[in-house]
């Protein structure tokens, strides 16, 4: 694997499968009484968030802490762009503090690419502007595999604001790598003009696509988009591109409904769909932690899970150590720490 995870395009099929397989092993951990591994003890992971995204930050934070890494949350919101410290100076600061990995969420597309030029540690893209969100795509693929047993050959419809969606970009790239057939469904205004060059199909008609779909992924659409005339009203958008119970009935019986969150209930997805048995939305959140653990583990540990560890703090210790070391003692307090931080 590369040193960084910036784009889903950085992942070969083998890389992606390694992450998913590793995440599967790590997910077993969540079922144990003590959910902490010592593998990244002594390593520092910085969550550098220029945008509010509590769910993504907490997911990365939980992932890093379950691997015993030291986590620094650096909320740079408001100190970005025009005022305050430049991204470069922030990067040099993190570098001086010895960050082994920087997880960055930023409103500017390409910010992780820039960051990677200025830090020695690994850069993990936690969502950059309207570009990519590769760990979201990984957790989506992970969720599909858990629910449907495979990704290869699945027919996946990604529905909504593709133009502004980092989730859609990463999913199209990763699902293609993993052998799925992707169809983008959106009003023409919310598709890139050159979308025909993407490795996927395109449709403007959701109802026509649903019967031939194993996975339907609904993207969040911002009501403000109508101000720039991307669509006339939220109601019209909902009628044409929203997933309600009647449209959901067009899906094959085995098909699942996904959403990266946060949802606009009643706009792109109806409440009865979001809460239905087909919905994987809550699973996606849980799976996000496992996948992000796998990414941090593989980027920072560098060793296969089956390999013998060479000592804590240098390389990843084998998973077999789980719950047998002093991680247990630390782990005991972990849940309450996490809960306390979330409460803040």
């Amino acid at each position: 694997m590369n040193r960084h995870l910036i784009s889903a395009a950085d992942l070969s099929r083998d890389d992606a499968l390694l992450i998913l397989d590793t995440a599967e092993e790590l997910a077993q951990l969540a079922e144990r009484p003590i959910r902490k591994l010592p593998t990244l003890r002594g390593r520092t992971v910085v969550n550098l968030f220029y945008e509010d995204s509590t769910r993504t930050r907490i997911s990365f934070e939980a992932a890093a802490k379950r691997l015993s890494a030291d986590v620094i949350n650096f909320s740079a919101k408001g100190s970005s762009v025009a005022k305050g410290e430049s991204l470069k100076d922030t990067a040099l600061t993190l570098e001086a503090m010895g960050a082994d990995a920087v997880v960055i969420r930023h409103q500017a597309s390409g910010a992780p690419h820039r960051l990677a030029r200025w830090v020695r540690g690994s850069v993990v893209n936690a969502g950059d502007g309207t570009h990519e969100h590769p760990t979201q795509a990984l957790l989506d693929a992970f969720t599909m595999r858990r629910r449907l047993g495979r990704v290869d050959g699945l027919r996946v419809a990604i529905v909504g604001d593709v133009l502004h969606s980092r989730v859609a970009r990463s999913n199209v790239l990763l699902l293609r790598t993993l052998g799925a057939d992707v169809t983008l469904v959106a009003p023409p205004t919310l598709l890139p003009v050159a979308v025909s060059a993407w490795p996927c199909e395109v449709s403007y008609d959701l109802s026509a696509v649903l019967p031939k779909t194993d996975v339907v992924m609904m993207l969040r659409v911002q009501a403000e988009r109508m101000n720039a005339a991307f669509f006339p009203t939220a109601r019209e958008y909902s009628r044409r591109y929203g997933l309600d119970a009647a449209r959901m009935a067009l899906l094959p019986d085995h098909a699942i409904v996904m959403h990266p969150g946060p949802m606009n209930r009643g706009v792109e997805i109806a409440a009865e769909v979001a809460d239905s048995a087909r919905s994987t939305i809550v699973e996606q959140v849980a799976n996000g932690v496992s996948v992000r653990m796998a990414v941090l583990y593989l980027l920072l540990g560098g060793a296969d899970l089956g390999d013998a560890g060479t000592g804590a703090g240098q390389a990843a210790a084998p998973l077999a150590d789980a719950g047998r070391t002093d991680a247990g003692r630390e782990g005991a307090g972990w849940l309450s720490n996490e809960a306390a931080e979330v409460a803040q």
Partner: protein
Amino acid sequence: MTPSRVSSSLATSGQTWLIKGVQPAGGPATDLILAGGRITETGQGLTAAGAEVLDGTGLIALPGLVDLHTHLREPGREDAETVLTGTQAAALGGYTAVHAMANTDPVADTAGVVEQIWRLGWQAGLCDVRPVGAVTAGLEGSRLAELGAMADSAAQVRIFSDDGHCVSDAMLMRRALEYVKAFGGVIAQHAQEPRLTDGAQLNEGEMSGLLGLAGWPAVAEEAIIARDCLLAAHVGSALHICHVSTAGSVEIIRWAKSKGWRVTAEVTPHHLLLTDDLAASYDPVYKVNPPLRTRVDVDALRAGLADGTIDCVATDHAPHAIEDKETEWQVAAFGMTGLETALRVVHAAMVDTGLLDWAGVADRMSARPAAIGQLDGSVTSTGAPSTGAASTRANNSRANSSRANSSRANSSRANSNGAPSPFALLHGRPLEPGSPANLVLYDPAARSVIDPAQHASRSRNTPFAGMELPGQVIATFLRGEPTVLDGKLAR
């Protein structure tokens, strides 16, 4: 290190120069004698007593290059460039005249500011600086600046532009085109429909979609060009299109010219060589307005420059401080430096590809831009309402008297700063006896890697850094005095 081609280092003002065996515009080798600010003699085996001798063997001589589109940043952003450093860069690139865009701080929208910039250029003495006046007050696009006052000032502004901003209001554009007819002005339009480019970052196409950067559609440029060609035709005025960047724009300009309308256009060196896939690195050194386009556009721009649809190459030299480029892409400043690399890029994009010979380069980088900027003596200020036969005769006689006044020492039209009128300073003339001795000597056989640290510009934002390009400017002469010798500033 380039061996010195100069027989003595005692180059002083008023010195006579004998340039041996140089190829004017790539033609047969000849000697040139420069004296009293002019080319006095050409031919084989010339001698001149007391002259400095420069061995021009293997060198191409071109008339001093003229840039219609330069950002010198002074006044206001002297940390990025000054008139002095910008004209140093220009001289090193082979330029003897540059047009300084109006988007300074304060904006060049009054007679006072344009005179200040003109004077700074004159004092630097490296390259004639012709200020471009703003079309609208403060570049705000709401009311006309005092165009007549700038035209009548010591700077004698003839080109007006809100460059950096489009004069997007059709009524205002029409009025500007009409109004400048009174003094023979030209409106240089930055063609960018603002509503179609709100927040735009990169050419709208495959790359912008992939990179998640807000798209900048070609139609945003083409729609304005089409509109303005029609407006220029309607009011019978002169329109110049800045930095044409799309294949569609070339088509529209070709059509407008076929109608006989007074439309001229420029293309930048970077749009002749670079494409939008460079943005994949998100390095803002490739962020520019208009954006880098596709290979199809590059090919159309080259063809348009070759067939004359696009009149000239203009650098859009846009220096920026490091901190304005070492950022995230979408907060970085737009623009690239270009003066020191323009001729070499044109060499690579147009000459090495067989699209243009050196005479063509002389035309597109000196004669035509000088004509558009009215520096070639073919047009002087007009108040005449038509361009019929009578006024053409008048223009010719004015041009002749202007030529007679053209030497710096003999000017009878000096303004209050001791500087001559810009119209007494001719550029873009062929390299023949009687022409002002504005020329560049260029070694086409040289090749080197572009190193921004070696540039005289105060800024380092060249997209050609690390790229190997052909050619080297060996010497630049401004009215017979060297500004560059042996590839280095001579003063």
